[in-house]
């Protein structure tokens, strides 16, 4: 279990108030709530994109909240995926290896493994701007996994996909995370995501866990 304490932040017209939250360090934990409940704010604070004085996050004896964003060792897939548009799929994924200073041979072998699992080999050389929605999502996931994160954060990762692609994408993400054995927090408002992916569900409303 990792323990988050004092996740309290006042936005003026909205307040996040999570004094204590235990997050499983295995499987997928879903943070589920309606629009405007504070899911994305929690996500941004945990990532370190927004300051939150007083926050502590004990992850296997390390207080992640005291580490700089780039040292937290978290993986992330944003709702809009945020691929680097000037790079192709392969370069996007390998950027994570370069950032983490992973050896080239090892990075190439991980790339090949992830490419096979996620069905990306055929689009490795395609510029990010030209990838389809489903391909973008899988490249973003592969990039996050390439960095060997201690925890993966997924912010509504299926919301930009067509309904007919979502079911397959959910199962793929579930299977890959299981195989890679990486714990994840899934931010979602979609109940189908919970049914297919979540081992644990934490509901959030008006900035509070309920």
């Amino acid at each position, binding site marked *: 279990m990792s323990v988050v304490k004092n996740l309290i932040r006042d936005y003026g017209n909205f307040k996040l108030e999570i004094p204590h939250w235990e997050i499983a360090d295995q499987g997928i934990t879903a943070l589920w709530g309606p629009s405007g409940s504070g899911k994305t704010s929690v996500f941004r604070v945990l*990532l*370190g*994109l927004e300051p939150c004085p007083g926050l502590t996050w004990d992850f296997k004896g390390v207080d992640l909240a005291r580490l700089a*964003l*780039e*040292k*937290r*060792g*978290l*993986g*992330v897939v*944003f709702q*809009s995926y*945020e691929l*680097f*548009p*000037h*790079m192709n799929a392969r370069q996007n994924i390998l*950027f*994570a290896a*370069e*950032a*983490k200073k992973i050896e080239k041979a090892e990075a190439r072998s991980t790339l090949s493994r992830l490419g096979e699992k996620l069905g990306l080999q055929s689009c490795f050389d395609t510029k990010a701007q030209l990838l389809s929605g489903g391909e973008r999502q899988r490249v973003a996931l592969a*990039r*996050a996994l390439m*960095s060997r994160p201690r925890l993966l954060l997924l912010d509504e990762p299926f919301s930009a996909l067509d309904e007919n692609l979502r079911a397959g994408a959910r199962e793929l993400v579930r299977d890959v995370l299981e195989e890679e054995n990486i714990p994840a927090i899934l931010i979602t408002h979609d109940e189908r995501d919970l049914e297919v992916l979540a081992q644990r569900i934490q509901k959030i409303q008006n900035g509070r866990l309920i």
Partner: protein
Amino acid sequence: MTISRGIFLLAVLTLALPYLLLARQIGGIGLPETDELLWALKNSLYQGVLSSLIALIAAFTLMPGLWWAGPRLKGVLSWALLLPSLLPPLFVLLSFLAWVDPFPVGLIGVVFVQGFMNAGLAAVLLSRSIEDKLQGLSEMAAVMGAPRFLFLRRSFRLIVWDLAAVGIAIFAFCFASFSIPLVIGGGRATNLEVLIYEKVRISTQMGEALGIGLVQLAIMALVLLIPSRPARLEAARAERLHLVASRWGLGAAAVYVMIFWLPLLKTLPESFRAIGQIEGLWSQIGELALPSVALALGAGLLCLLFLLVFSIGYPQNPIVRLVRGWLAPSTALLGFAFIGWGDASPLITYASVLALLFFLPVFRLGLDRRLESLEPQIQIARTLGANDFLIWHRVVRPQIWGIACVLAGVVSLWAFGEFALGRVMLSQNLNWALLSESLMSSYRIEAGLGVGFLILISGSLLFTFFWRLGHVGR
């Protein structure tokens, strides 16, 4: 020390250098007599307010044309409208002097020229921010059958802040304008900037010059403190803006472009004949060719270096806030700060000061929003564990290289035609711009125009070089 902290320190030192030099050179700060100061202040305010008003009013006649044009024509038209503000002020001056005869020297002339010069810029800036806001609304209003005037009246409140932001930017340009009031202001339109120049160059009252410079800076700081809401960054769909697009606007834009170019082109043969009639002028032009190109190229390359280096570490690096909020000293004071530095190598010194002068405006106009739009990518790169340099090298640089090169090209074009700074710093005609200004000051307008054409041709070639560099060096 991290890379970004080092870069921040370097930026502070670079931007503060003129102030440090001024502090070393000037014993104390003084102010001129109150009447003289208030008179120049009044002229500066009139020039700033009236020029921005003219530019905004003219922009409203040009914008419907931009919205009427299809995507390709719109790109060409935007560049054509931007040219009077992108080209050195020398060209606008030459164009006006060629077709307005007798030219109304003084406040009216200054306001007229500055308003015209910035109208195209105002139209392009405003059309982009308004387009984002009104696209959906205009379509809905058109479907509902709302009359054009009703739509404009009802949507005006939505665009007030955009109007204010562009108006303030143009006010700031014109309030502290130097070259245009210097040449066509005469004795009747001396603004604060020209007064500083007179104190430095004519009466050598350096303390008073610095005092006026600080007054001007304080007013600029107050004006720039007026809050403006930033426009949304998403691009609107490339469709015509219903109800506000108009083919008449296209006509107005064509007239605007012709007002600028026709007089220049009409006098072209006469201008070159006039050069031949002045003995020794062609050989002087030949001698100054290499220094002119070297200066402009040097200023452009230095500016490119500043733009690239200062984008390292964005957005954690407070450098962007520094550059956004920094107020450079007046052109005349900047020139004065570096007087004496260029005795040994005037070209290098002058090119560096030109880069310092133009770096801030091009960063704010061209790079700031681009860097802002990269912020989500930078954040994701940081979550992946990338350090500042890797983010800059792999994510930021490839995506700003093209625009940074275009901006460096604009700076080289400006540097090619800049003469006001040179008048303060140098005692000789070091390049074609100074030669052209000397000819104009001695009422040899046609010959000045001819040299101006050489600047335009060479400056365009240099701009093309930077533009091509932006395509090959990614």
